[in-house]
């Protein structure tokens, strides 16, 4: 069984990560009735016996002593991490897994990426190395951060390139939160585009999540739960949207949205942790879904988001209605896992490498260009040591190329491409 390490950077990354750990604990508590530290648990947690003198890692098969998350928490201001450490999850994290500073990045990608990136490079590498050494067989790094802020996008992408340098064989899956159009950070287009370039070049695959979509989903769910038709019963114990039943008594504002993202991460790894009739490992995600190295943006969708009492098992009805590229007409990769998530009998996660990301990227580019044409707020970035205007133009051209590549694929959609000639079987 392989292990994965979660690296959460910035306020958004840490808040989502916090929900993730909460859900993971609940899922394993639901499945693991005997209190034994089994292979599935070891993929995200290590079992520590604090009485042992050598640092205490226990191997698989014994009873659970103390579970410590395989995580590294990075934030350049202390508020969020301190909140986690005072909350119910404090036992799950070790002080050696945290990296904090006081003043924050000021929503400035350059400060996060260059200033803090160089200042804390050694410390970050050490902590990552420590986390990796605790793993028997490390398969994947999950990086969670937002694109609009300063720490998440700047330092987060710096961590990404450090991961590529130090651990080139380990898969890097990034969950990036893209800002909505009414985002409260004015410079979020700059931060996002600068971070996009790093993601395109250094990540193995990216799961882009838009804040706007999460807001829509949460609204739809609350509409359903308040105005549901009389015949349908809403399952209250579903873990997808609410932390009801979780450890914290009051729900914070972004919790519902973060829960959805946390569920996404849990579902992706479920086939690698639990058994099933058609297993799917994490390295198979990149292998099957990324046809060309730069086109690695996989749009996630998850169902059920709210459970009605009589949910049907989804079948392969999607197939005929989706236009595929000509060279991959049946581009489906299937995985089946026998263990359902908490509160549901079935669930379906779909990852699509789809040109629908193109409009999102085009909007991002538009918002960037609006600011960049006027050179608004540019001096904050250029004041940072090591930052140059060329970095802006290079990031913009990288994004434009990406949009072009997706556009090429879109253009072939309706056309019938003749099959390339090959030797035919003699009849």
């Amino acid at each position: 069984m392989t292990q994965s390490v979660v690296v959460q950077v910035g306020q958004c990354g840490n808040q989502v990560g916090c929900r993730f750990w909460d859900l993971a604990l609940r899922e394993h508590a639901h499945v693991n009735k005997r209190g034994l530290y089994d292979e599935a648990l070891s993929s995200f947690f290590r079992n520590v016996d604090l009485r042992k003198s050598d640092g205490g890692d226990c191997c698989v098969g014994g009873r659970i002593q103390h579970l410590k998350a395989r995580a590294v928490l990075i934030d350049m201001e202390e508020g969020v991490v301190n909140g986690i450490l005072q909350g119910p999850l404090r036992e799950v994290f070790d002080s050696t897994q945290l990296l904090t500073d006081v003043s924050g990045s000021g929503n400035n990608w350059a400060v996060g990426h260059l200033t803090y990136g160089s200042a804390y490079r050694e410390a970050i590498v050490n902590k990552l190395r420590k986390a990796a050494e605790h793993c028997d067989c490390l398969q994947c790094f999950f990086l969670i951060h937002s694109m609009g802020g300063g720490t998440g996008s700047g330092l987060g992408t710096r961590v990404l390139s450090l991961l590529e340098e130090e651990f080139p064989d380990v898969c890097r899956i990034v969950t990036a939160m893209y800002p909505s159009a009414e985002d409260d950070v004015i410079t979020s287009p700059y931060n996002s585009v600068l971070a996009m370039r790093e993601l395109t070049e250094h990540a193995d695959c990216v799961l882009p999540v838009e804040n706007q979509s999460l807001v829509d989903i949460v609204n739809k769910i609350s509409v359903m739960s308040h105005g549901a038709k009389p015949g349908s019963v809403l399952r209250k114990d579903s873990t997808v949207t609410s932390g009801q039943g979780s450890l914290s008594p009051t729900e914070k504002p972004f919790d519902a949205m973060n829960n959805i993202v946390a569920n996404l991460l849990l579902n992706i790894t479920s086939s690698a942790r639990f058994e099933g009739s058609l297993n799917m490992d994490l390295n198979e995600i990149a292998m099957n879904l990324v046809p060309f190295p730069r086109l690695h943006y996989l749009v996630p969708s998850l169902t059920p988001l709210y459970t009605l009492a009589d949910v049907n098992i989804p079948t392969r009805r999607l197939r005929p209605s989706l236009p595929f590229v000509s060279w991959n007409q049946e581009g489906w990769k299937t995985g089946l896992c026998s263990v359902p998530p908490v509160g549901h009998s079935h669930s379906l996660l779909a990852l699509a490498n789809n040109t629908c990301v193109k409009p999102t990227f085009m909007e991002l580019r538009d918002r960037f260009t609006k600011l960049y044409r006027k050179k608004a707020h540019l001096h904050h970035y250029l004041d940072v040591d090591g930052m140059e205007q060329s970095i802006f133009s290079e990031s913009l051209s990288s994004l434009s190329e990406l949009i072009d590549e997706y556009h090429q694929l879109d253009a072939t959609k309706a056309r019938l491409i003749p099959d390339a000639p090959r030797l035919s079987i003699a009849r």
Partner: protein
Amino acid sequence: MSVVTVQLGQCGNQVGQELFDVISSDAQDGQRKTYSSVSRERFFRQTSQGGKKMRYNKNKAPRGFYYDCCYVGKVLKYFFFFLRVPDFEARAVLVDMEPKVINHSMNRAAKSGRWRYAEASHFSQKQGSGNNWANGFRVLGPRHRDAVEELVRREVEHCDVLAGFIPMMSVAGGTGSGVGTFVTQCLRDVYPSSFVLNHLTWPYGTGEVIVQNYNSVLTLAHLYQLSDALLVHENDAVHRICSQQLNLKQISFGDLNRVIAHQLAGVLQPALTPDSCGAYSGNPLGELVSALACHPEYKLLSACSIPQMASASIAFSTFSWPALLKHLRQMLIANTKMEEGIDWQVRPPPASAGRTSSLTAGGFNASLANLLILRGKDVYSAETGGFEDPAIYTSWLPPAEALSLWKSPVPFDKYEKSATLVSNSQALLRPLDDMVRKAWNMFASR
């Protein structure tokens, strides 16, 4: 005449476990002694019974079974039931690059109570092959070559007479296809005079794995040179059997695997062959290969069996050899794998048409060679003339050579009469062509 099975990857391990299940329950169902003992010798080994081999089995232990040994034993006997059960260990080597499936298969085997896998006959790693044939063939295979060869060698040494190897794998994934091809290559190198019959599972045409066509094409190209014969089951065909023949609603991979195991066991269980002079054949793989793979360029074999029905319906059905054989012959000619929906219009081309004209005209499936295995009551009175018709074979092999007939008077797997047909025919051409076309299109893009 023992067969060593090498189960590779998730599919190989799951199908292999079902296969041994079917074989052990078939051999145990109060059958004739010779049949059971030949079958057991072929696929299992009995572990030696010592004082320490005791199993606590509270469901089966009779009261008052005393074990005469030391004081501890006498004390224990007052508090526990002990029963000596013969341990049948499968002659199998389980290989996978991640541990979940092997653990699952070994547990299921042990739970059956009739047989199990030997404790030390499996090899697994932590991280899978990632659906990557190249990773399996070039990296993981060579890296773990010694460990796997050692396991195979130990299994072979337990055999009195080695009949050959059956590597079982799928062609769509990474481990089964990549590591499986490498292991077949090693078997060829280390045991050049043994028979190697690969059992392959071809994936659903529409996507279990996106790169399945690449993996399949690479595997088949290599295996064609290495293996003696390739016996193929396609997931699509088996799925149709499950849905239309067995009337299953929610078809899981477990159901598919059971059908495949049933057909495979129908081929491999003991039978009387023309060469074996009145006793059960001691060389099943060799005789199968020599009967069917008559030309080194034609090695793809497919199997179909009749009858196939839900086990609840068996008690209410009657079988007759003429009906079974007539359906089976038409299944062969019309290239379907089940009795439901046979196209009776398909006929072999008339003898007057030139032999060089297209043999695939009208959907007709021409055969190079067929092996017909009949099991059950009144098997000696079955009329197999329909299979000796020269019209269904090619011109360069006379039907007397092309058809081989094996019989066994013992009913197989609860069917009073059953027939299995292994054929070297054009049946697999269409799926193979599809596979190559899709792989080529993907490769030729950009």
